[in-house]
């Protein structure tokens, strides 16, 4: 299976006053299309930094990140924005929905930014994906009227509505109870299997890791185990629960 992500010798330094803190120390990683991969590691290990670089919201200090054939460090801000809009979906730990928009509008937003989609087609895609994640009856609600699990389902719908090639999820279950977290991961897994969307998510929760097809272990800014010898995308160890709003 061809690689959608190739991370080659990536170093990432962050300035800290007059000093510089190295968050990643020469990371190499390849993610194939259709994988359902977890990046695991303790807090501060560099998981989020790695996701930021792969998600084209940041660029490496050294090394290259190749996303779907494009070297991200060579792209302009405008090109990176377009790439995120068309090929990437994001799921955040704190859901990051736009508080002043309804569930429908939150999910519709990326399609409106993309443009070129007719009103009827856009509405159909939004309704379909909301139904698909089990949140269709909350279409007119505002995010603050939903539970954490429901919000994360909306976030998943928003991430998937543009039919991206890769969905990045940064600790998607960290703010959810274990049952809801399991359901969310199950939903992501189901979408991965049914729609073939590549999922890459960070976590330090061992129960969540169990669902991953592959687990990449990160520690102190280094990949200590890229998971290629372990789980594969087709051998998920847990069955996906039926989507339902919680």
């Amino acid at each position, binding site marked *: 299976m061809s690689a959608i992500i190739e991370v080659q010798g990536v170093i990432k330094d962050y300035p800290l006053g007059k000093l510089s803190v190295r968050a990643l120390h020469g990371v190499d990683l390849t993610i194939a299309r259709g994988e359902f991969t977890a990046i695991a590691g303790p807090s501060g290990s560099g998981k*989020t930094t790695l*996701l*930021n670089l792969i*998600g084209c*919201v*940041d660029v490496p200090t050294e090394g290259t990140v190749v996303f779907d054939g494009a070297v991200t460090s060579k792209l302009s*801000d*405008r090109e990176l*924005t*377009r790439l*995120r*809009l*068309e090929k990437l979906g*994001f799921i*955040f*730990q*704190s859901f*990051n*929905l*736009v*508080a*002043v*928009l309804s569930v429908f*509008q939150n999910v*519709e*937003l*990326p399609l*409106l*930014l*993309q443009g070129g989609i007719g009103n009827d087609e856009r509405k159909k895609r939004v309704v379909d994906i909301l139904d698909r994640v089990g949140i269709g009856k909350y279409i007119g609600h505002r995010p603050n009227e939903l539970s954490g699990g429901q919000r994360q389902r909306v976030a998943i719908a*928003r991430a998937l509505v543009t039919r991206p090639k890769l969905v990045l999820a*940064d*600790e998607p279950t960290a703010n959810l109870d274990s049952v809801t977290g399991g359901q969310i991961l199950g939903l992501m897994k189901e979408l991965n299997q049914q729609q073939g969307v590549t999922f890459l998510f960070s976590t330090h929760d061992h129960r969540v890791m169990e669902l991953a097809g592959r687990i990449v272990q990160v520690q102190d800014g280094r990949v200590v185990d890229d998971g290629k010898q372990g789980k594969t995308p087709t051998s998920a160890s847990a069955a996906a629960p039926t989507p339902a709003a919680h």
Partner: protein
Amino acid sequence: MIIFEIARNNLLASRRRTLFLGTALFGVTLLFVLLLSLTAGVTDNLIRGATAVSSGHVNIAGYYKSSPTDSQALVTNVDTLKAEARQALPDAVVVIDRLRGWGKIIADRGSVQTGINGIAFDDEADLFSMLTLAPAKDYRENPANPEETRGNFADLQKPNTILLFAGQAKLLKAEVGDSVTLRTETLKGATNTADVTVVAIARDLGLLSGFASFVPKQAVIDLYQFKPGVSGVVQIYLKDIKRSTAAMNELRAHLAKKGYAQLEHDAQPFFIKLLQTVPGEDWTGAKLDVTTWEDEGAFLVQIINGLKAVSLALVMLLAFVIVVGISNTMTIAVRERTREIGTLRAIGMNRSSILMLFLLEAAILGIVASGAGGLAGAGIAAAINAAAIRVDVDAMRIVLLSDTLHLVPRVVDVVIAVAVLTFVSAAAAFFPALRAARITPVTAMQSAE
């Protein structure tokens, strides 16, 4: 459209902040519209006063000098001149002539200098439509019946009569029915006098009416011993007063072509030319002088310009306060909404849309609050105008060119005020919006950690 929705909803979500800034914008726009209405009112007073008392929209005055040092306000062959005016200006609605003089009104208990206008009552329907009889309180001390009006404008058709304005009557301590003496100097340098009866006392029409009185034409002819066909000025009223300057130029060209000698155009009222400018010029004979109503009220235009300057300074000061308030508030909003901005950037919104989002927020606030302020200002101005509030302070009357508070709310002024305040509001948000647009999308990921 979704950007508009986010902007609008964010305003609604931050109710207290929106209400605070909205109230400030509302207040400043209201004040701005009131000041613009006041300026328009004063301008209106000037136009009404100037065109009723001392000028047509365009005038053909004449000056005659028998020696280099003297000056007399007269035009000869007035009927020919009126015909020339009608020929040159087909859009002239009314063409009349008045005799002009300058002299002193002497009463038993006082005297005042005045311009003397000799008029034909039947020609002056427009003048009398603008004049109203003054109540006794306007010119008499402690009247038994303050609102009582006496006299009749139509009595000016009778010989040896005079119409005074309230300010003059107050100085002269004159009443309707009193006999006063007009004293002038003839062309040959002799002093001439005429006794006239006060038949009406009109409400003041601002500063201009302080220097004007009206008598029948024959009274001026007798005072100055003019020959038939002589008058003081031809006053031309157009369909559209805005065409005054263009019409003046057309008339000047027409008269020049017909061989009439003319004074160079000088934006001064007639009495300044009569008493200062023309006597100082080294020529003899007759010259015409074509002017507009604005020229005749030029000294009053300075009052309007001063009022405009004060209004502008006040509004700019308040707008500066608005700018600081909106800028600070938007800076706080950007800081509070860093995660939202980062999220929007992460999911594919570009920098210019983020910039637009915050500018739109300020612009929506601006147009709604200033729109409401503009309408409220226009409403209050209309109410004040309808109330016809009397101004008792003389200095204020001079500035306002009227004895009542006259405000003219105009759609164009409301539009200007709303546009300016909306622009100010959006401009104040520019730098915070730029800062928002520069937030990197990685912020969203970091804020989620």
